[in-house]
């Protein structure tokens, strides 16, 4: 299995350098890339090899020495394959961190050993917790600039542990001291910090165990109905989508939500090849025994699902707000949830999360980079899960009708309305 990693930290904490170091020390960097970085190092910097330039690929990034947009990089060791997102820490910092964390199994949170825990670090831990990233690697970086001091390291880790107790959901911190610039404890263990006896960052990432999604029961949100209309497949009517939440097999009884109809699975195909069963994550198409009215946006759920989704048109959700135009009570947005698109009306803003103290404040509006809890009325019933039960069914985005921009990321925490 691929391990997806998000990186987080304030500007200049060393995220890009760390990723460059991981790529370099796992021999992922090709000769021409290294040559181009060497050339660019002469132009932007003091001439010593600047590994951050491996991910800072846009011209403006190189000129300003910053990362502007999320970049994805790939590397592999004999143990595992990794995808790492370099998420920049300024202007749209929360948006980038949320985006990176939403698809990650683990977040590397960098702290500059000289500065200690900052407001940004607290924010990153909060976001990881809110987004359900349960494993964090707290990497205390630039240890070379604090004489590799164990006292300094212990102090920072203690502050982080204290903050972690106030987070909305528990997060494992997995702390370690590193120097991204020099490579200490990144891939190879450090000779400079004999007091640290744990494994290097890469070793930990290679062996990190993720708790498997406990099965809540299979569901398939219909993306497309395949109707060939050919003589050979005259009656074929395949419900295409990606299976999540559990396995299905031919013969399983299913319900089609938000309606009340039931039927039985009679065929399963993946890429046109018939199979008896399907696993979560597989892009499949299924056929049902009965000719019931099903279209894009409907959700097929096994009758035996231990924790089925709920049909609701009022939802309570945590939101990460990603644009300049504020989210205000009484405003209307497009909501996209699974394969359904509808309108959503903001009926209330319950609170704005104060990420550095993990406390809450009442507010009338949420601005760029704010995190808060909102109540939405949706124009049609959605088939939802709680985000903590099931990410695909518990996540949604808000889109601005006028500009088409993606404005908010939603994590569903509660619902009301029609029961299933």
């Amino acid at each position, binding site marked *: *299995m691929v391990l997806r990693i998000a990186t987080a930290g304030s500007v200049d904490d060393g995220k890009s350098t760390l990723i460059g170091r991981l790529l370099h020390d*796992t*021999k*992922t960097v*090709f*000769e*021409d*890339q290294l040559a*181009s970085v060497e*050339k660019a190092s002469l132009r932007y910097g003091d001439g010593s090899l600047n590994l951050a330039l*491996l991910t800072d*690929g*846009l*011209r*403006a990034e190189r000129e300003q020495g910053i990362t*502007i*947009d*999320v*970049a*994805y*990089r*790939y*590397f*592999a060791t*004999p143990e595992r*394959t990794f*995808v790492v997102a370099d998420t920049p820490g300024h202007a749209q910092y929360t948006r*980038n961190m949320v*985006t990176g964390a939403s*698809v990650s199994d683990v977040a590397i949170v960098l702290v500059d050993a000289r500065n200690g825990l900052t407001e940004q670090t607290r924010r990153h831990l909060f976001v990881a917790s809110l987004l359900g990233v349960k494993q964090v690697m707290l990497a205390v970086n630039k240890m070379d600039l604090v004489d590799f001091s164990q006292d300094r390291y212990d102090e920072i880790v203690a502050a982080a542990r204290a903050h972690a107790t106030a987070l909305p959901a528990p997060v494992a911190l997995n702390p370690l001291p590193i120097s991204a610039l020099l490579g200490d404890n990144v891939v190879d263990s450090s000779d400079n910090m004999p007091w640290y006896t744990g494994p290097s960052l890469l070793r930990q990432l290679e062996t990190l165990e993720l708790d498997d999604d406990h099965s809540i029961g299979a569901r398939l949100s219909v*993306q*497309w109905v*395949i*109707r*060939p*209309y050919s003589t050979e*497949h005259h009656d074929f009517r*395949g419900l*295409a*989508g990606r299976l999540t939440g559990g396995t299905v097999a031919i013969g399983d009884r299913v319900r089609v939500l938000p309606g009340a109809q039931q039927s039985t699975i009679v065929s399963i*195909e993946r*890429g*046109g090849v018939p199979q008896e069963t399907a696993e979560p*994550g597989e*892009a499949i198409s299924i056929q049902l025994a009965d000719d019931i009215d099903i279209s894009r946006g409907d959700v097929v759920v096994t009758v035996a699902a231990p924790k089925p989704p709920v049909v609701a048109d009022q939802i309570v959700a945590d939101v*990460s707000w*990603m644009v300049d135009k504020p989210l205000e009570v009484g405003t209307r947005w*497009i909501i*996209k949830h699974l*394969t359904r*698109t509808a309108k959503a009306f903001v009926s209330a803003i319950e609170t704005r999360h104060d990420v550095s103290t993990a406390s809450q404040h009442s507010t009338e509006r949420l601005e760029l980079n704010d995190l808060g809890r909102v109540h939405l009325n949706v124009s049609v019933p959605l088939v939802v899960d709680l985000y903590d039960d099931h*990410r*695909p069914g518990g*996540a*949604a*985005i808000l*889109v601005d009708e006028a500009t*088409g921009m*993606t404005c908010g*990321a939603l994590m569903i925490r509660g619902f009301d309305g029609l029961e299933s």
Partner: protein
Amino acid sequence: MTLTDNRLDGLDHDGGLDELEDEAITIIREVTAETRAPVLLFSGGKDSAVLLHLAAKAFRPGNLPFPVMHVDTGHNFDEVIEYRDRLVKEYNVRLVVASVQASIDAGRVVEDTGPRASRNRLQSVTLLDAIAEHQFDAAFGGGRRDEDKARAKERILSFRDRFGQWEPRAQRPEPWNMLNAKIRTGEHLRAFPLSNWTELDIWRYIGREEVPLPSIYFSHRRVVVERNGMLLSVGGPVVAEPGEVPFEETVRYRTVGDASCTGAVRSTAANVHDVITEVAAARITERGATRADDNFSDSAMEDRKREGYF
């Protein structure tokens, strides 16, 4: 432990190919459902071959619900055109050809002159004109994030404004990989279902699925000249310059582009398995080795992307 060993190691198992396939098919279905008139950009290269294969699988046993478009620079390898026409029949899809020559004739673009002129840059105009003419609102491309540092910043669903331009600072976030296909008239989307694939994944998939490829991907004898460290095929648009001595060499291509600026590499890899072994051991990225246009300047790809390139 080196990456080369790891990569060779990866030959024995399928290392994530199923997952990549599921993800790509999910993206293709989603974009098709959310847009009015999508099109698949087909260059005849290996990435677009894989893309077409995946698109066909996504809608089986139905037909592909959209056409494929070839942006024809007029500087083609004959083998690639033969291959394109064969595949169109095999997959039973509608082919739209957008011609760079037609853009030149219509005065839409001015061709660089001289023996080293390439039509690669001109493709952007032809592509955007064709998208407007056919009123396509989404174009599937075979771009991968591992190809280039600017591509590494690309979204799965990439928004293009009325001028076809890409603005890296104003990209739509894709939390949970949720795709937002909302656009206004005149704007369009580029969709990259292969975003998370590497070159090696592509080859392993081609091997596993027996995806047909143009013959120039495998070793053959060819008359070339060596220019800026690249081997360019002589005949067609490339003419030997004074001082350059054409010679015959055993080569293959790692990418297929405009024949005037796509270089061959010395290789004896005659089949997919040989190629995988070679790719796994390669120490130079495919673009660095074979694309003269990217070596122009360090941000050549970013510049072309901003102008509306693939």
